[in-house]
Structure formats: structure tokens, C-alpha cells
């Protein structure tokens, strides 16, 4: 298929990239934009290693036709800057071994905590149901999600402002 230009916002910056219409966003993010946190593993939208946020919601970039990102806001873990409370929680709890699945876990938890600031363990497990960790760090990952919720709550207390109230 003939390449086309697609436009979206990537981690807060507008980008224009070349893509084939039948190409997946994952390929474009890695090849055209050099992002390595999105990883193809199953290629079926099952494992979560290729997770990115599309308008704030987690999606599988391995099965998202790249042109569908047109006009959308795409966030990868690179866009969180390294000190996001969810990232800090993963470090504190040491919720990883090889780290391969970690970007997808972090983004999924970020989106969950924006919708539900204080989820119970069952809710966390359900939200992470489609993110696989072959090192088997699930207990620590759930703990990291709980720790991230606490860090975010602390942050909200320190910086109250519009939109800071928990949305339940």
C-alpha cells in the first residue's frame, strides 16, 4: 500500500509521520519515532507489552492500524518522564525482574488510577488482567499499583487545586 502521512500528538508533542495504511502503530512508534518501550510480543492484543495510551486509555499498539491514531493523543512510558508516581512506586516496590512488561503495566495502572484513585485489589487485578508478566512479578506489581495510589493521593493533598478532587 502507498505510504501516507499521519498526524497525532505523541507525549505532548505534535508529530507527522509516514506510515502504510495497513501498518500497525507499534511499527511506526518504533521505526519512525524511535520509541522502544512499546514491544511486540503476541501480536494479538493479548499480552500488553505494546501498550500505549490513546486519549488517556490503554490500547494495544500491535493491533491498532496506524492511521487510526490520526488526531489522537498518544502517550508512551517515555512521556511520563521517569519520576511519575507510578514509576516511583515500581522502583520502590521493585515490581519487576526483566522489565519487559513494565511500560505496559505502568501505563495501564496510570489510566486506572485516573479513573479510580483508590481501587481495591480485585479492581487492580481486573485492570491488569490483559498484561502478562512472564517473570511472574504479579504480587509486587499489584503492590506497586497500591503504592502508586498512595503516592498520587499524597501529591493531591500537597497540591490541591481544580480537578484535584478524587473522581469516584
Amino acid at each position, binding site marked *: *500500500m*502507498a505510504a*501516507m502521512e499521519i498526524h497525532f500528538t505523541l507525549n505532548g508533542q505534535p508529530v507527522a509521520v509516514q506510515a*502504510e*495504511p*495497513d501498518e*500497525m502503530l507499534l511499527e511506526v512508534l518504533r521505526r519512525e519515532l524511535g520509541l522502544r518501550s512499546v514491544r511486540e510480543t503476541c*501480536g*494479538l*492484543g*493479548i499480552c*500488553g507489552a505494546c*501498550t500505549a495510551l*490513546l486519549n488517556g*486509555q*490503554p*490500547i*494495544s499498539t*500491535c*493491533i*491498532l*492500524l496506524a*492511521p*487510526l491514531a*490520526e488526531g489522537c493523543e498518544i502517550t508512551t512510558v517515555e512521556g511520563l518522564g521517569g519520576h511519575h508516581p507510578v514509576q516511583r512506586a515500581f522502583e520502590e516496590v521493585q515490581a519487576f525482574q526483566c522489565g519487559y512488561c513494565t511500560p505496559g503495566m505502568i501505563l*495501564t495502572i496510570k*489510566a486506572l488510577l485516573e479513573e479510580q484513585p483508590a481501587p481495591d485489589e480485585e479492581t487492580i487485578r481486573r*485492570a491488569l*488482567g*490483559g*498484561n502478562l508478566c512472564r517473570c511472574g512479578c504479579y504480587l509486587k506489581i499489584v503492590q506497586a499499583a497500591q503504592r502508586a495510589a498512595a503516592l498520587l493521593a499524597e501529591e493531591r493533598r500537597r497540591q490541591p487545586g481544580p480537578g484535584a478532587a478524587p473522581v469516584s
Partner: protein
Amino acid sequence: MARPIPAWLAPTSLEEALELRARYGEEATVVAGGTFVGILINQGLLQPAALLTLRQIAELAYLRVEDASASGKPLLRIGAMTTHRALERSPLVQRGWPVLASTFALVASPRVRNQATVGGVLADADYASDPPALLHALGASVVARSPQGQRLISVEELIVGHYETSLRPDELLTEIQVPGGIEGAVYRKFRSRSSEDRPCVAVAAVRREGRLRVTVGAVAERPQYFPEICALAEGQAGIDAELAREIGERYAAAIEPLSDARGSAHYRRRVIAVEVRRALEDLHQQIIATGGGSQRHV
């Protein structure tokens, strides 16, 4: 020589989409949420000449309840591009059709549900998807539009075989209609592998206006429904344990199950008997809890 089709067709209005669909027919693969098409392309199973995306048609994403004047019962109208997540999280759906919200929440993972649409899952007619069996049991219909007009097709008549629908090459599925007046509805998803997997056996059981409708999904090329077996519950206030067992066994005997990675035909047949019985037991409990009325379902 004919001019090649533009590879990416992204109409912004339904009118424009219908015109493109009529012009290119099956030469252009329709993309709704894109999860199914994405997987097929990624796995090398589909090499479309062109893709026709409905993603930019804002008028196709909505959830509305209307009073159907003919029956006096409410009707849920779902725009074809409504995502699974939007349906699952809609207070309107949670209140009026709780079984729809809870069933769509069982599909795959949140990532897939953020992308996948209600129209898409029906148009794919994938035997192993959750929503078709439930929508079939609920007596849902779809609106098929073409430049010539529109027609209403029941889900029962829509899904005709393996990934096959009765949609014509110039038609687009634009709306799903789910009737109200439900006295009880349950969906049981039996998985043989992992929590985010597709069902091995899916059972939807619905009672509306005193009539029972049991649809079994994921076991054959299309949803399985046997009105003559369901008629055994006719005129009964509830469904007692004996009747539940009998209907389960009759369904198991009537269905010719397929074999796949989630279970052999032999295994599925045994599970069908059990899961249909359990679904009817759940339905019975629900009907008792709501006094046979429509507390939870409009």
C-alpha cells in the same frame, strides 16, 4: 485501466461512508474499532486492497433509550461505533440493561474494549466472541443502511455462519437495537484457559414477557438457539431444578459442537449441559429476587 482504490478511506459523515461502501463494496475492508482487522492483518491472514474506516464518523457513537410506541417497552439504541468500554461504563446501560454492561466487561482486556465496537463485533460474526450470543438471546436487531435505504435485521438472521453475515456488500451496520421489558437475563462465560480468553462455552438466558430464550455461543459456527426446547418453560412461573437440568441436557444433545484449542466437541457437549443448567438456575434466582418483575431490567 481502472483507477486504483485509495488505500485509506476515512469518511467523516455516514452519508459519505455509505457512498464509498456502495462504490467499493467488498474491495474495501470496513474498519470499526480495528481490533479484529488489526489481528488479521498482523497475522498475515488479510491483505486488503483498501480500508474503509468509520472511526471519524462521530454520529455513529451514541447510546439512547427510546420508548417504542408499538410495544410500550423501552428500546436501547446503540450507535455501531460505540466501544465496548463505553457500553460497559454507561450508567444508562448499567441501570436498564445490566446484563449488557456486565457481559461487555468480560470481553478480552480493557485495551481491546477501549477499541472494539458493538457494531464491529456483530459484523465480524466471530463464533468465539461474547456479545453475539447475549444480543441474540436479548432479541436484539441491527440497522443495515445503504444509499437505497435501511432495513432491520435480527441478530439471529444477521449471523449466518463462520465470520459470515447477511449484510450486503453495499450495506453498513449502523445501529444495534435492544428491546427492554426483560424479566431476567444472565450470561455465563465458561473459560477453559485464562481469565482474558474467549469463552469455551457461553450461555445467555433471557426471560422476556414470560418467554424463555437460551442462546449458546462459542460452540458452533453461529449462536445456537432452540425455541422448541425453550418452550418447555412456557407457562411456568419459574424454572425449577428439574426443568433446568432437562433443558441443559436437551441443548447438549441438539448442538453439534466444534473442536478447537479451547475444547473438543466431546468436552463442549458435556459443558453445555452443565452451563445451560447453571444459567437457568441463575436466571431462576434472579426472577425470584426481583419478584418476576423488572426491578433490574427495564
